């Protein structure tokens, strides 16, 4: 079975979720592009979008339509050549609409798992629950006579465990997209102890067609991405808790969030990132990873407490941010949750006094956007960290501590052989988390 045949009947499980919808979109576009090649005319391509909620599937179809339209508008120059023999398609608009149609007729939304029994390739992007994943994969594999290949989007569960428990005989590989899959360039590719070489070969070809950056990771719970992020988050939470002895917890959270965003020149502060991923998702990933760790307790009472009070974060189906540890207006944090009063405290009420406590900002600091896309970020970052190095304000000290810890986590991932190289850790943070620099650097030496 060649690349095209493998991609002619595909299923995405959990297709209406934020990861599943992106995987569905990218795969559907890839399949339609294949179907439009002259040698594939007349062949039928099907991608099943399976989810538990009909309502969510309706939203998914609207999302896919809007995204397919954008994709078509972006590549109209090529599409005119692709549809050159269609005399009825003259204007760009007609060509773009035809492409959107071709994408939509390839996708079959369904709440029934049975439609996946004919697929040769199955993407799994359901809830990060090992037992549920094993149950679904086993059921599918027993009923599907095509010996399908499985691409799991798990961000934390060891692939070997899924492979063995669902009895898949190495027809599985970890193919971990970053959120949102349509935008983030990174995929972590993780082989189980048994992954067949042809599965890996296909995975790499597929990643290349999608123009993704592949970072291989060892099959260890959390892999590289969450291996770094979860520990980085715990550091931030710990720093805020320490600080909360002097100020209120919301004030401490505001300050650590500011330091981790502005001082460290990151796209968002650590508490905003936790909200972005979902407070409950973070807690869950830690709980999946924790049993595999020796001499380390990856767990946060603070997150447990928030979840107990219904503070969850995450995103609305349109991609906008739900309130979590922080409250958002037009995507910007405006208040911080206070677990003691169960209310949000307005940032504007304490911002000035907190900023004063942090001390003067380093003068060379610029927003992440201006640094990351400047084309000379290395020089700008060197200037910024050189200045931070010489400063002794509370903010600068926190920033230095934060950056050192981030580097330490990165080095530990390499030492533990979760990451195969230092550059892989940096690539993950650069392309999966959109950082302007990798954590393993010499800026503070």
């Amino acid at each position, binding site marked *: 079975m060649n690349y095209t045949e493998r991609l002619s009947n595909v299923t995405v499980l959990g297709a209406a979720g934020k990861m599943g919808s992106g995987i569905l979109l990218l795969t559907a576009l890839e399949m339609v592009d294949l179907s439009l090649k002259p040698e594939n005319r007349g062949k039928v391509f099907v991608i099943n979008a399976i989810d538990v909620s009909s309502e969510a599937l309706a939203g998914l179809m609207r999302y896919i339509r809007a995204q397919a339209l954008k994709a078509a*508008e972006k590549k*109209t*120059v090529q599409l005119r050549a692709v549809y050159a023999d269609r005399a009825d398609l*003259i*204007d760009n608009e007609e060509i773009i609409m035809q492409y959107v149609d071709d994408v939509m007729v390839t996708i079959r939304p369904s709440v029934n798992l049975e439609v996946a029994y004919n697929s040769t390739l199955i993407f799994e992007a359901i809830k990060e629950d090992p037992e549920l994943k094993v149950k679904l994969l086993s059921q599918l594999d027993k009923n599907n006579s095509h010996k399908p290949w499985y691409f799991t989007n798990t961000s934390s569960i060891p692939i070997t465990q899924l492979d063995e428990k669902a009895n898949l005989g190495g027809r599985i590989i970890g193919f971990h997209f970053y959120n949102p899959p349509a935008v983030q360039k990174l995929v972590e590719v993780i082989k189980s102890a048994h992954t067949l070489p042809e599965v890996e070969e296909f995975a790499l070809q597929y990643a290349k067609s999608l123009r993704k950056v592949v970072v291989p990771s060892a099959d260890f719970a959390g892999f590289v991405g969450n291996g770094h992020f979860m520990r980085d988050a715990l550091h931030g939470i710990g720093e805020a808790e320490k600080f909360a002895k002097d100020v209120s917890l919301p004030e401490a959270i505001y300050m650590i969030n500011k330091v981790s965003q502005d001082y460290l020149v990151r796209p968002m502060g650590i508490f905003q990132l936790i909200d972005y991923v979902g407070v409950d998702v973070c807690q869950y990933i830690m709980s999946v990873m924790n049993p595999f760790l020796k001499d380390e307790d990856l767990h946060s009472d603070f997150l447990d407490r928030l979840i107990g009070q219904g503070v969850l974060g995450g995103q609305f189906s349109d991609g906008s941010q739900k309130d979590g540890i922080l409250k958002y207006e037009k995507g910007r944090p405006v208040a911080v949750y206070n677990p003691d009063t169960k209310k949000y405290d307005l940032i504007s009420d304490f911002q000035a006094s907190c900023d004063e406590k942090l001390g003067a900002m380093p003068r060379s600091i610029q927003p992440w956007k201006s640094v990351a896309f400047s084309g000379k970020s290395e020089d700008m970052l060197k200037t910024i960290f050189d200045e931070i190095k010489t400063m002794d304000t509370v903010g600068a000290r926190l920033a230095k501590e934060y950056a050192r810890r981030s580097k330490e986590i990165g080095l530990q991932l390499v030492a533990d052989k979760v990451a195969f190289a230092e550059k892989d850790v940096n690539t993950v943070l650069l392309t999966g988390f959109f950082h302007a620099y990798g954590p393993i650097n010499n800026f503070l030496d």
Partner: protein
Amino acid sequence: MVAGYNTISLGTGRKEFNPKKPRPGLEEYIREAGQGVLKQIGGAKNVDESVIGNFIASRFNRQGNLAAFMPYIDPDLRYKPAVRVEGACGSGALALATGIRSVLAETADVVLVLGVEVQNTVKAIYGADILAAAGWAKDRKEGHAYYFPGKFSDRAKAYQEKYGKEKPREAMAQWYVNAIENARLCPTAQEYHNSSEELQSCGMMNPNPRGFVDSLNVYDCSKVSDGASAIAVVSEEGLKRIGIPKSEAIEVIGMGQAEDDITKPPDDPTILATTREAVRKALESAGITKEQLGTVECHDCFSIAGILAVEAIGFAPHGGGAEFVIQGNTKRTGKVPFNTTGGLVGWGHPTGATGVHQAITIWEQLTGKAGDSQIPITAERPYGLTINMGGDDKSLVSIVFKKAE
């Protein structure tokens, strides 16, 4: 001609432009430009008739019957004659030509001539479909996604194949630099806010055939613009009626119109043959030579069109336009300053308004009203020339002007 008025040219580049926010519509632009002229000429009561030039509001704005917007400018225009003319991107100068013919025929002494286009209603990829109507519809299927950039990219490619790759590229970059430098001096220009220090390297950027066209980069292209321009075309009698001295006006000395077959590709893509013919007629009817031109407003819908226009006028032999531009002859300080408020690349290109905007720039320059954009006009070279083009060198109007007194 007298009493010109330009709205700003709105689109990417202007600080006011935000594609997500509501913007003025066709009617606001028409009213602003129209009233801008009426204020200078003693009101609508002095107007005998009006002409409105527009390319394709029927698709950009779902609006036809544009002549009926003239009374919207001022109630005193109700029940007076008005006509809408169309010749793609040459609609503006066709409107002027229509007004000029009325005055010459002595059926009117004061004609309000207005050009307008509001293009930012659709994304560029769909705007390309709409603008493709300036070419032959039966050629659309074979054409590029960006149809007109594709046409002029083909001309640039042919020019580069004939005369070498480097020099024409350098000349196109220089054209862009000149356009922006001039636009920075004109507050209504779309590139007025442009503060880039890297103009030359922008202009030299390699074309990206995957996303755009083979031989042009985005800086070679005129802008997608919303805007309107209006001016009064008046007889000597008319001038008296509106109470403006001759010294404030410019006189039409000559005019050349030329039309070519829309179904035919150019005989030689490195030559703007219809432009050459229109300019020849204009200079001939004015009884002057190109050496007497103090300034030119040419139709640089793409930088290559600017270079080809230099050759079509005869300032340089075929293949010599690039060198002529590189040498700085078309800069505001050069031998013949071209497009002194930025032209289509720098000021903007609200298609149906462009021909009128060109005449206004000439009016400002020849009567000393150009503000920061002002260039010196000498007694040896007192004439101004406009070239307005519809389609790919198809519908041409060229006009020679001189200060009236």
